[in-house]
């Protein structure tokens, strides 16, 4: 605030204490958000399609089911990686992950627990009483179908339980793949 008084202009003074407060708030905010996002979507090499007809799912209410393979994923995500390279990795799935909880496919009681938890997540994230959230199935490209099938069937059962038969039958599941380069 500069003022001009009868005695001449006054030097402006900037108080930087609130600025430092805001900066620290921003740091804390971004650190928290980073953690939440990396929890929900573990690194997975998604299928790379020949002619992708995928679209971006609208709506930010979603439940993401991840199937992560056993092979140590080196974090190099990318479409256009040659098929041989992707598919030479072992296809055994290590676990199914929803949020930050993981279950091993085939372990006793794991699938019931998964159904239970998934049902609760869906109910908790309903957009409104007749609109369920987007359910996204993020599976690594190298995983065997035999590992994905039980997850899909359990998913359907959980949806039927949580939403009721009719709504569950009308709710599609989104399969996630790379969008491809423009």
């Amino acid at each position, binding site marked *: 605030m500069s003022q001009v008084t009868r005695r001449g202009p006054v030097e402006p003074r900037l108080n930087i204490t609130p600025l430092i407060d805001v900066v620290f708030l921003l740091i804390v905010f971004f650190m928290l958000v980073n953690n939440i996002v990396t929890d929900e979507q573990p690194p997975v090499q998604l299928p790379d399609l020949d002619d992708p007809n*995928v679209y971006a799912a609208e709506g930010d209410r979603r439940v993401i089911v991840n199937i992560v393979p056993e092979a140590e994923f080196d974090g190099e995500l990318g479409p256009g990686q040659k*098929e041989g390279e*992707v598919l030479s990795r072992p296809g055994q799935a290590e676990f199914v992950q929803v949020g930050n909880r993981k279950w091993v496919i085939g372990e006793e009681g794991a699938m019931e627990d998964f159904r239970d938890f998934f049902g609760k997540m869906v109910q908790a994230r309903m957009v409104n009483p007749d609109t369920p959230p987007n359910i996204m199935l993020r599976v690594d490209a190298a995983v065997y179908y035999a590992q994905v099938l039980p997850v*899909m069937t359990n998913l359907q059962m959980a949806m039927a339980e949580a939403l009721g038969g009719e709504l569950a039958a009308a709710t599609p599941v*989104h399969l996630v*793949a790379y969008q491809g380069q423009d």
Partner: protein
Amino acid sequence: MADRPDNPNADKPETPEIEIPDEQVVHHVSTRKKRKKGVGGEDMQLQMTSMIDVVFLLLIYFVITANFIIDEGTLLATMPGNSAERPTDAPPDPPIQIDLTSSDDGVTYNIMVNGQRIENATSLAAFMTNRVQSAQMASDDIVQIKPQGVVRWQHVVNVFNACVTAKLENVGFAP
């Protein structure tokens, strides 16, 4: 001035000027000026150094922890075990089944549509589009993909995508 009452001192003799030496003269300094100057008596300066340090720290932190997420798109699918509802009461046609089997080396795969072998996903898309256009099948016919257990997810989604490219609406997985 003429209407003013008479100055009572008008006729008094002039008071002699008294000389006061300079060091004893008190110059009046207003207290307002004193308050404005502040404790230090000097102007305050903005310290930019610390702020620049914090900003650079923030920048470096976010540059190091940033990972660029490649765009992920989605395909809509119905799950196995979900009975897709047909709009009409017509007797349900048997769903068109796409079998995916894996050859021995685990990398190549075969697609069979109702017994007919297709080369790869791209020709599958062309094949399906052809059939829809020539009215051999409708775009809302139920198509079920039935992969073998050892087929990798990559191929499954590729076939799925091919069906979506052919504008088929009811594509799902076989129970």
